[in-house]
């Protein structure tokens, strides 16, 4: 029984942190937020050189062959840095989908590129505002051609390959689409968090290939895996937001003392710390389940995802409030966190979805 990351994993984490401190300070996130580039291309390349995109891709496909615990540590650091790169959709979903459900040919075609960062992957599930059910998908596949509109698609403007949920003969499945092909129209959308891009993609008879065995259940499992890794990304962001806030309130004086000496602030900081610790513990458990392919994963993914989404959002709300007026300025970094928290909570199903799933899964676990 040892409920902690190993020294090697922590070393990898420290390396990632050092790399991001040097190559992705918050000003990098801000450049993407304010500028016209959809993501930080040099950072994306650098990350690939560190082996991050291919963390769990086998070495035979050019990956680093690390495990999921290592990838969780990297996700955490990416989250801490608010790194403006298409990491989650490409690594946690598209790459995973290929690893789990890709044919040998599909894997050979795409995994090396995804692992070395020369291709960006994404996942296209949602079609309209609301909480879309996998069963209610309108996109259809017929004779190897995909038609339908996906909205929004994270990184849909820059991705090279998409894993698209669609129906064929009334059954939901996942399809691999090379976005360089014909019959594809993309339009970038204004993002709530402009440091991460969003697009709509319209498919009109676009060539696609099915992923084997990727039925509705498999999609749910894929979301579980991505949710665990995203939870680490969210907790990384929450930790950083709390640290920045802590530093600010200790240095900011009002009424002759640091504002951090006010119980109104201290106690809410303590509550935030508790929220984040609860999220961290749930995420650790989920990472263990993910790394061990444990039957607890479906439950653990819900726990991790719910706790991390809420901890990150709450922390960023208080972050602005405790900064006072300057927290509401564009110049300060609070809003980078405030935006990212919402962006990550909206990916992969909102907490509502996961809460409902948690009860279903606990019941079926108990019935089993």
């Amino acid at each position, binding site marked *: 029984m040892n409920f902690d990351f190993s020294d090697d994993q922590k070393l990898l984490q420290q390396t990632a942190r050092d790399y991001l401190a040097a190559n992705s300070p918050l000003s990098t996130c801000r450049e993407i937020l304010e500028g016209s580039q959809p993501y930080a291309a040099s950072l994306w390349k650098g990350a690939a050189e560190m082996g991050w995109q291919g963390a769990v891709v086998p070495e035979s496909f050019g990956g680093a062959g690390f495990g999921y615990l290592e990838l969780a540590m990297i996700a955490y650091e990416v989250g801490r840095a608010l790194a403006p790169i298409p990491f989650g959709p490409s690594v946690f979903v598209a790459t995973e989908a290929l690893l789990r459900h890709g044919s040998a040919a599909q894997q050979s075609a795409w995994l090396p590129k995804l692992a070395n960062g020369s291709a960006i992957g994404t996942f296209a*599930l*949602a079609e*309209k*505002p*609301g*909480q*879309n*059910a996998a*069963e*209610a998908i309108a996109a259809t596949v017929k004779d190897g051609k995909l038609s339908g509109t996906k*909205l*929004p698609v*994270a990184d849909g403007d820059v991705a090279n390959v998409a894993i698209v949920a669609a129906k064929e003969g009334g059954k939901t499945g996942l399809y691999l689409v090379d976005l360089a092909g014909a019959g594809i129209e993309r339009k970038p*959308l*204004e*993002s*709530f*968090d402009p440091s*991460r891009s*969003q697009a*709509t993609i319209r498919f009109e008879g676009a060539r696609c290939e099915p992923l084997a065995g990727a039925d509705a259940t498999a999609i749910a499992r894929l979301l579980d895996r991505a949710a665990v890794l995203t939870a680490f990304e969210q907790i990384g962001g929450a930790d950083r937001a709390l640290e920045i806030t802590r530093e600010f309130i*200790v*240095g900011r*004086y*009002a*009424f*002759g*003392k*640091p*504002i951090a*000496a*006010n119980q*109104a*602030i201290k106690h809410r900081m303590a509550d935030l710390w508790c929220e984040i610790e609860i999220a961290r513990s749930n995420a650790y458990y989920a990472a263990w389940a993910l790394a061990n392919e444990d039957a607890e994963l479906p439950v653990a993914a819900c726990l991790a995802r719910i706790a991390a989404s809420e901890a990150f*959002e709450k922390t960023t*709300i208080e972050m*602005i*409030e405790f900064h*006072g*007026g*300057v*927290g*509401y*300025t*564009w*110049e300060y970094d*609070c*809003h980078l966190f*405030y935006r990212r928290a*919402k*962006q990550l*909570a*909206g*990916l992969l*199903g*909102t*907490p*509502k*979805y996961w809460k*409902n799933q948690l009860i279903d899964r606990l019941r079926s676990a108990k019935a089993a």
Partner: protein
Amino acid sequence: MDFNDTPAEAAFRAEARAWLEKNAKPRSSMTPTISGEDLTAEVVKQSQAWQKKKAEAGWACITWPKEYGGRGATPIQNAIWGQEQANFETPPDIFSIGIGMCGPTILTHGTPDQKKRWIPKLVTGEEVWCQLFSEPSAGSDLAGLRTSAVKQGNEWVVNGQKIWTSGAQWCQWGILVVRTDPTVAKHAGLTFFVVDMRSPGIEIRPITQINRGQGFNEVFFTDVRIPDDQRIDAVGNGWAVSITTLMNERMSIGSGMGVGAIEDLVGFASQLEIEGRPALEDRQVRERIAEYIVKARGLKYTSLRTLSALSQGKTPGPEASMSKLVGGILQQHAASFAMELAGASSALLDETAPAAAAWQERYLSLPGLRIAGGTDEILRNIIAERVLGLPPDARADKGLAFKDVPTGPPKRG
């Protein structure tokens, strides 16, 4: 207890409505905005024109004395006017600070000459006003401000920096509180002035908000000279004058919280689906929206109770603090919840999901509303101390001369 208008009130309402129907277009929809949105010269002109039109017909500054251009009417009549005007399209209001805060302060603390000099042109919209209180190191602790004024002959020379000044670019006048004596306790060393915003030595720099708005400014003072006859109330009495302004500010922000929009969540949720079923069939969605509406309605009815108290001649209490405190948190939570309902589209700030985008705009505006005019923490202190009579916080700066109050972490080494 009567929710309905008395005959006199009904007559007043009919008169107001008739005038509005003749002079403005009915409003289609309404979205709350944080005070101090981006203004253009064109908008300022429109707003001034509308104010002038109202003033000429006796509908500007309804409760102010007739001798200064007001209508001398009651708070209830003012509320009725507000309800009616809200049904019409009107230009963005650039007078909320002048009429909501500066005017009442001068009417309370100014000399008759000062009132005659400033109030009528404020009523007609000819002159626009702003407020110069907060400083980079004095936000919640407003009385810790450092901008100084030193008397030279019959003038005061001001140096320092103010921040969070809405609409400074468009203003003729500003109300200004500065430190005139750093050797006494912090509240005792302040004095209140009216400053001509076109004075030499004033520099205005806009601040961009997180929602990209640029309503606020930093204002820098370098040897700005203010004649002594623009001083409001006695030297050293600036804190008491400022309190009048702040009370009016909270009332103004609190009453403009736009909590009415909360009920739009019912319509918003009925347009969305959750896993294939209408969102409004989801019990959690229903209950959450119900909880928000209970709070929003409670605030609405509280403002009506306040109005009744005002009309009975009572002083407005801390209800304004409550309205801003509860309304701000409520709206931020509601906006966050609406975004969650939008699912993945919550990541869009885009015309593809217009209703969702409106809630996202609110989610980006609300943090500012929770800070402007007093943070939640300041408001809770006000309620705890002034309503519940709980003791003040232990004060590290108590009994210290202002210059001796700690302002930062102890230096090391």
